[in-house]
């Protein structure tokens, strides 16, 4: 690492005492690079054992890496915290303007601790940190935009990130998200609720600086090569043109997209919610994260007529992705793009994680059909597949109703199904709701053992796609999952968007790191990836994560995947083997 690189500076903010200080931690970054690698070390250091996730002692950690601000598509920030949703590792990644803003403000990581007496927001402008009153912003409903109110108050236009929570985060719903730049999110595992528990409404960060490199001429050359590759890559073109929803049709064709809480793998008119359909009917604009030329963020326009005035419409822009169309579409039996957008709007207004919310709504619908819950428990709402109005109402009830069922649903369906029953069809993995791929063993085992129970931990769906042509043994599958997840620790320590993983090969990463003064060999990088992965698991286990008691939801065995029925013997063997492998690393 280059000596004067401000990456090694960690900004600590104490919300209780309204104090901040900066510590230089070169040893941390020299050893663990940045991003995930540094964040997990800081989490071990700053999160005491056995604390409640809503304790003021639970730290919120943001970390970026050496490639942010230097190379294109190194555009992500890693957030870490103890998750109120699972009780162990909370890790979520987001882009927007965040990574470049943190790097340009002159930090490698930010650690926020304590709890503000009153609602507040933090403004970080380079070396200055301000604690601003946010009592007026607390409890603001849909009509007002917290983002635009803060935008008017703060400097740094064009370069700043504004991370904020909605009503769900204020009400400590364990799967509430943090929204940044209106359309990006730290979505999963409940960072929004941790913000809420600290009376922290928002964090604004801005800055502007130059970063040193070891050889400017070589840097310029490598940068331009990478930019050209990003421009010419077919894969990047796909992310730009239709975006992630390009996968709706191929996955529905291979029966890999879950439908109606995975009661079936077929639904008519799914083409109406395909990426092609969304683009043709709704696509209004594409936008990008800072320093990413791909622009995968697709904004749909939704025109809603006012009921009290003819020929008068409200036009809203909403970002859509594959996971949202799955969770708030196919999973709920919805095959109208307008309806999916209406649900996306409701979820955005509340500040909830879209995937968890969709899977929870699907569980409610099936539990209702099976008589596990009834109308008196749902405040009179009758959930029904495909009925968007009832789902919009349920989303509001989850946030605002005080009745017992909705109170329980604020903790997710692992908790709710433990209390009411319906566990067999509660699609959760390590207490986190299922992502949108029912493609085979790779996906399901990947969710179960991924350190954050995300489809992005090891991209099991990609392993399943390979397995469609070449069958994999248990050993091969387990090896692939572990290897992929370990390698991704390097990408998320740099911090590169996973979409560019095929362009940022280990050779390219080696060159990039050399220019920012890191001399890691490829072997050393693999070793660091393994260590970060192990460190995340150490944290999980320290928090009580029971690795010996993991199983797949019963439902996934009942409906064929893209690779046919899941064989329980196979998954049992894979679970045993993965457990052994992980334990041997600890």
């Amino acid at each position, binding site marked *: 690492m280059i000596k004067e690189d401000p990456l090694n500076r960690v900004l600590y903010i104490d919300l209780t005492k309204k104090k901040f200080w900066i510590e230089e931690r070169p040893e941390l970054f020299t050893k663990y690079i940045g991003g995930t690698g540094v964040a997990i070390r800081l989490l071990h250091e700053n999160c005491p054992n056995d604390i409640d996730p809503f304790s003021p002692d639970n730290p919120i950690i943001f970390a970026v890496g050496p490639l942010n*601000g*230097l190379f*294109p598509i190194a555009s992500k920030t890693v957030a870490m915290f103890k998750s109120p949703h699972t009780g162990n590792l909370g890790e979520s990644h987001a882009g927007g303007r965040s990574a*470049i803003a943190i790097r*340009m403000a002159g930090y490698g990581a930010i650690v926020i601790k304590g709890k503000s007496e009153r609602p507040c927001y933090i403004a970080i402008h380079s070396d200055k940190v301000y604690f601003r009153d946010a009592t007026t912003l607390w409890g603001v409903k849909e009509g007002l*935009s917290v*983002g*635009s109110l803060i*935008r008017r108050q703060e400097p740094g*236009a*064009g*370069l700043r990130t504004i991370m904020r929570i909605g009503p769900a985060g204020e009400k400590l719903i364990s799967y509430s998200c943090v929204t940044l*730049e*209106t*359309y990006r999110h730290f979505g999963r595992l409940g960072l929004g609720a941790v913000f809420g528990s600290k009376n922290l409404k928002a964090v604004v960060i801005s800055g*502007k*600086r*130059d*970063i*040193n*490199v070891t050889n*400017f001429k070589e*840097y*310029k050359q490598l*940068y331009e090569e990478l*930019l050209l590759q990003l*421009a010419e890559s077919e894969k990047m073109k796909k992310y730009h043109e239709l975006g992630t929803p390009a996968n709706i049709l191929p996955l529905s064709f291979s029966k890999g997209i879950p439908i109606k809480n995975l009661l079936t793998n077929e639904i008519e008119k799914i083409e109406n919610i395909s990426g092609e359909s969304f683009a043709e009917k709704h696509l209004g*604009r*594409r*936008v*990008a*994260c*800072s*320093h*990413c*030329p*791909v*622009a995968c963020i697709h*904004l749909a326009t939704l025109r809603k007529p006012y009921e009290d005035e003819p020929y008068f419409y409200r036009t809203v*822009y909403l970002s859509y992705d594959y996971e949202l169309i799955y969770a708030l579409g196919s999973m709920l039996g919805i095959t109208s793009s307008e309806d999916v957008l209406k649900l996306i709007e409701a979820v955005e207004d509340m500040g909830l994680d879209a995937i968890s919310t969709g899977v929870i709504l699907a569980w409610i619908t099936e539990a209702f059909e099976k008589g596990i819950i009834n109308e008196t428990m749902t405040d009179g709402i009758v959930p029904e597949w495909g009925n968007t109005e009832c789902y919009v109402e349920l989303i509001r009830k989850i946030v605002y109703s005080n009745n017992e069922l909705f109170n329980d649903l604020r903790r997710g369906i692992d908790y709710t199904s433990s209390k009411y029953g319906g566990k067999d069809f509660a699609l959760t993995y390590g207490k986190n709701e299922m992502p949108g791929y029912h493609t085979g063993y790779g996906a399901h085992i990947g969710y179960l053992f991924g350190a954050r129970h995300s489809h992005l931990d090891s991209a099991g769906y990609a392993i399943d796609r390979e397995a469609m042509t070449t069958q994999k043994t248990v050993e091969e599958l387990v090896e692939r999952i572990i290897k992929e997840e370990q390698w991704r620790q390097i990408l998320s320590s740099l911090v590169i968007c996973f979409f560019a993983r095929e362009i940022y090969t280990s050779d390219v990463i080696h060159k990039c790191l050399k220019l920012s003064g890191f001399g890691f060999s490829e072997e050393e990088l693999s070793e660091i990836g393994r260590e970060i992965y192990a460190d995340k698991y150490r944290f999980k286990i320290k928090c009580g994560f029971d690795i010996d008691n993991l199983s797949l939801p019963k439902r996934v065995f009942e409906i064929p995947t893209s690779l046919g029925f899941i064989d329980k013997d196979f998954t049992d063997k894979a679970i045993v083997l993965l457990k052994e492998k992980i334990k041997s690393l600890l």
Partner: protein
Amino acid sequence: MPVFVKDNEKCVGCLICMFACGRAHQAAGLESSCIKVRSQGGISRGFSVFVCRGCDDPPCARACPEDALIVRKTGGVLLKEERCTGCGYCVKACILDAIGWNNGKNKPVICIQCGECAKSCHYKVLEFVRK
């Protein structure tokens, strides 16, 4: 007038042009960049790019009390850094907001009319025309 803003509507707000401008000024990062990208009041409204249009009779040069900005024959200005006192009048004089500011040096960042911003843009928001 080497760089034209052809179509702001196509801008995705990726800031690649800003980083290209920094590299053209021999730096990695954004401190030495003068092109700017701003949302038009929230990201859903899209973006605007602010870049020097290389005026023939540049007000920035007229505003400079130290004659540090020399008018180029082909449009735009050249910064004589040794003359600049960092007063910032040039920034105020530019109605396009196309002059950057390097806080480290406390001096303006002036467009060198190289067209690197336009060349780096994937979406043809900008067009570079050599005079």
